[in-house]
């Protein structure tokens, strides 16, 4: 009772204290503080504001969906010289309270608000009216007004460490998909596919909409990278859940939590029946692929001997079918094993990985050249199948296996859709799709074996096959174009050019191998060269486009003589990068040294003002500046140590060591 009385006194005090605004508000269960991500702001450093809670053990505050009881904190901002562009809620936890489930935070939490300041040179003033509910079992609401100011300063203020302490959700990658399957009573059955995440650890799901979904943890049934998720419904009258927003929380390999915002999608995936039918058709078409057709036709011709009776023909057809289907099922099983083991291999094309996308584009480019007839491969395998014309069971079975083996390179362009869809399904369905492919492929032969008369309707092998094969190169090249487009969103133009370089190398390799047709060791040498170039691609530092853009925007200022002079006069450290898109050395230095996160953070740590003098297009100011340093060519790197008026000219070929050395020297002095 005394405790309650104390709570109430506190409550009343809060009400009466609201006119009193400071940056911190203390209450019996803890404190809340309004803080800025940096001590100052300028054009290059947009600040964020944070509402930082520190509360005593056993108490908690709430997430935007509070769960079974409670209420989310609320804020009402008034800002001078800035507006809020985005707010971020840290990852919540499920907090059980007396049989109820709440979503919220205990101990410490930080709600972040990104700012877009307006007038330069002016400070940003922020005041926020905060209402929050804090509960153990009993609850106490508080209302308070917090105030802070962020001054303008050209100098880079040190960042507030608290801001790096919490994890905030990112938007889910587009490869994640989450579709409702069916409504069963008060449960919505769904399938979540996290294609790019190898076996997510400790997956948790938080619904944002507490009116539609219950707060209790939903049932999760893992299936490789898929999860069947049964969501318990709060509102059983609702049937449409499209766009319902959720937060997924998983852990990465180091046990660090990661959050993704995702919504339920509209379209259910193609039904299993449709996908299997598609696979059946795809398998059927495979027979007419140049790689398979010879096996089939020669095999068929071998039947037509005088001593063949209907019975042995049928047996042969049956075993061929078995052979094909078995191979497809093994292929499917292997694919699923790899998938379960966390490998992102297979027809599911995990295009999230640029290396795999690049590898596939190379394969398709190479296959396309093959289809165009620039070189022959796989012929010997095909004829091996053809030679196995014995009609015994093992022979027929083996022919089926061989037909599958030679068919696999041709599979991708035709079966992509069916296989892609099947990989997002549970294991049993994936296998069913593979069985469909196998059956489709075996079907013509099976029919021929049972109805030998149909053989007269079979198109004769001939020139049309060659034409078809050549034509099929073009869909492959189109796929390559699409893959390059995908890659252009993932890697820098330099990596993309390197990939195109590999294409060039492949073409060269094909041309050379015709010259050295009979010199096996030369062929092997060429093949090794090709593998080596791909290995280089894989090992090249893969800096993603987005991170590069972000770091560029953030850190590098455009060259301005006046601004540099001013910085030097103020005693700041300055680094000038004279560069141009056409200067290969510059690009190499940029990629391997200047724009790496290591060097970037060294610059930040030492408060170096970074300037980029881009000489790609003619720019007399930059030409003058170069002349000022006694140069007329690129690259040129100039560094002014803090408080020094004397420029240091750095070598043309940079290393990380050279840059890091600059700061070491500075410290020794």
């Amino acid at each position: 009772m005394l405790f309650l009385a104390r709570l109430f006194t506190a409550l009343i005090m809060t009400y009466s204290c609201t006119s009193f605004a400071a940056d911190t508000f203390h209450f019996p269960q803890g404190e809340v503080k309004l803080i800025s991500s940096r001590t100052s702001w300028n054009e290059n450093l947009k600040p964020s504001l944070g509402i930082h809670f520190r509360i005593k053990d056993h108490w908690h505050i709430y997430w935007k969906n509070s769960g079974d009881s409670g209420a989310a904190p609320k804020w009402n901002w008034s800002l001078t010289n800035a507006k809020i562009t985005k707010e971020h809620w840290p990852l919540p936890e499920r907090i059980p309270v007396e049989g109820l489930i709440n979503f919220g935070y205990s101990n410490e939490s930080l709600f972040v608000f990104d700012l877009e300041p307006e007038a330069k040179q002016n400070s940003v003033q922020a005041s926020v009216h905060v209402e929050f509910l804090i509960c153990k079992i009993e609850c106490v609401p508080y209302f308070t007004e917090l105030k802070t100011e962020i001054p303008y300063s050209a100098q880079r203020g040190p960042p507030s460490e608290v801001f790096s302490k919490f994890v905030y959700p990112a938007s889910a990658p587009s490869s994640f998909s989450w579709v409702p399957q069916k409504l069963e009573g008060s449960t919505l059955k769904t399938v979540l596919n996290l294609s790019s995440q190898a076996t997510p650890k400790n997956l948790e799901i938080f619904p944002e909409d507490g009116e539609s979904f219950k707060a209790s943890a939903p049932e999760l049934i893992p299936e490789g990278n898929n999860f069947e998720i049964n969501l318990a419904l709060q509102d059983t009258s609702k049937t449409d859940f499209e766009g319902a927003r959720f937060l997924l929380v998983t852990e990465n390999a180091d046990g660090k939590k990661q959050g993704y915002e995702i919504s339920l999608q509209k379209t259910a995936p193609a039904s299993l029946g449709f996908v299997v039918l598609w696979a059946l058709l795809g398998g059927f078409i495979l027979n007419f692929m140049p790689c398979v057709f010879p096996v089939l036709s020669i095999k068929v011709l071998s039947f037509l001997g005088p001593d063949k009776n209907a019975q042995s023909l049928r047996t042969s057809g049956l075993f061929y079918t078995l052979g094909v289907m078995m191979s497809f099922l093994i292929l499917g099983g292997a694919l699923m094993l790899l998938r379960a083991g966390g490998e992102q291999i297979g027809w599911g094309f995990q295009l999230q990985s640029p290396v795999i996308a690049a590898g596939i584009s190379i394969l398709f480019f190479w296959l396309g050249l093959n289809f165009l007839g620039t070189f022959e491969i796989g012929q010997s395998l095909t004829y091996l199948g053809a030679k196995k014309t014995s009609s015994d069971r093992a022979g027929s079975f083996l022919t089926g296996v061989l037909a599958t083996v030679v068919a696999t390179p041709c599979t991708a362009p035709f079966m992509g859709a069916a296989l892609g869809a099947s990989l997002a399904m549970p294991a049993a369905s994936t296998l069913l799709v593979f069985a469909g492919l196998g059956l489709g492929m075996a079907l013509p032969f099976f029919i021929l074996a049972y109805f030998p008369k149909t053989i007269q309707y079979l198109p004769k092998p001939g020139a049309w096959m060659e034409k078809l094969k050549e034509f099929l190169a073009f869909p492959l090249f189109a796929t390559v174009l699409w893959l390059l487009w995908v890659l252009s969103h993932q890697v820098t133009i330099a990596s993309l050019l390197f990939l195109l370089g590999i294409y060039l190398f492949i073409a060269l390799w094909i041309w050379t191998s015709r010259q050295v047709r009979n010199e096996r060791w030369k062929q092997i040498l060429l093949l090794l060269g090709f593998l080596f170039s791909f290995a280089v691609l894989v090992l090249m530092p893969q800096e993603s486009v987005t991170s590069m853009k972000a770091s560029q925007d953030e850190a590098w200022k455009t060259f301005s003589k006046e601004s540099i002079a001013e910085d030097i006069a103020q005693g700041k450290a300055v680094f000038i990068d004279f560069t141009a898109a056409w200067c290969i050395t510059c690009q190499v230095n940029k990629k391997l040294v200047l724009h790496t996160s290591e060097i970037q953070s060294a610059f930040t740590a030492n408060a170096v003002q970074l300037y980029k003098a881009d000489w790609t297009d003619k720019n007399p100011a930059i030409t003058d500046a170069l002349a000022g340093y006694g140069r007329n060519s690129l690259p040129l790197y100039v560094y002014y140590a803090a408080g020094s008026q004397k420029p240091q000219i750095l070598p043309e070929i940079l290393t990380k060591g050279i840059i890091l050395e600059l700061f070491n020297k500075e410290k020794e002095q």
Partner: protein
Amino acid sequence: MKKIFAMLLITCASSLAMAEAKIGSPAPDFSVVDATGKTHKLADYKGKYVVLEWYNKDCPYVRKHYDSKNMQKIQGDMTAKNIVWLSVISSAPGKQGHLAAADAVKNAQKEGSKASAILLDEKGAMGKAYGAKTTPHMYLIDPQGVLRYNGAIDSNDSADPKTIATSENYIVRAVASAEKGEKIAKETSKPYGCSVKY
């Protein structure tokens, strides 16, 4: 010993499966004694609308609606129309908001409550049958005994009484729609407030 007992209590509480009163289905029956010792059964009110309100005198969200006289006003409007209003206290003995019969009568007088009766659901049987989670948590049962509304009292889950004026009162809207024979626009909502102290 005390600790073990407390732990046991917590375990029991969290393992109690919440039953769920379903919209469009007959509301769960109850048989609960009120503050004056009279037993109330849902069946007694056949032919009348019944509003259930979960109550805990110490919960700040209940205080929001009582200190501002909002709740008493709605109760008065409803009971004047011959609607039965039952305030239910499901707080267990020793927990926040629990009231013995005599205290409950006094408290109701002090509050100026216009409820038809204050039900004492000490064991939480009625609360659990309805799945009452918060105070306040509101339900509407129509004259046929069918549950028509389950959820919050209004659209703003702030603890600030100033927000009442600008909020949409769900229970008032539900009763109005039901009386006119219209479909209730919002049949369920997420109740807000303190947890019911079972």
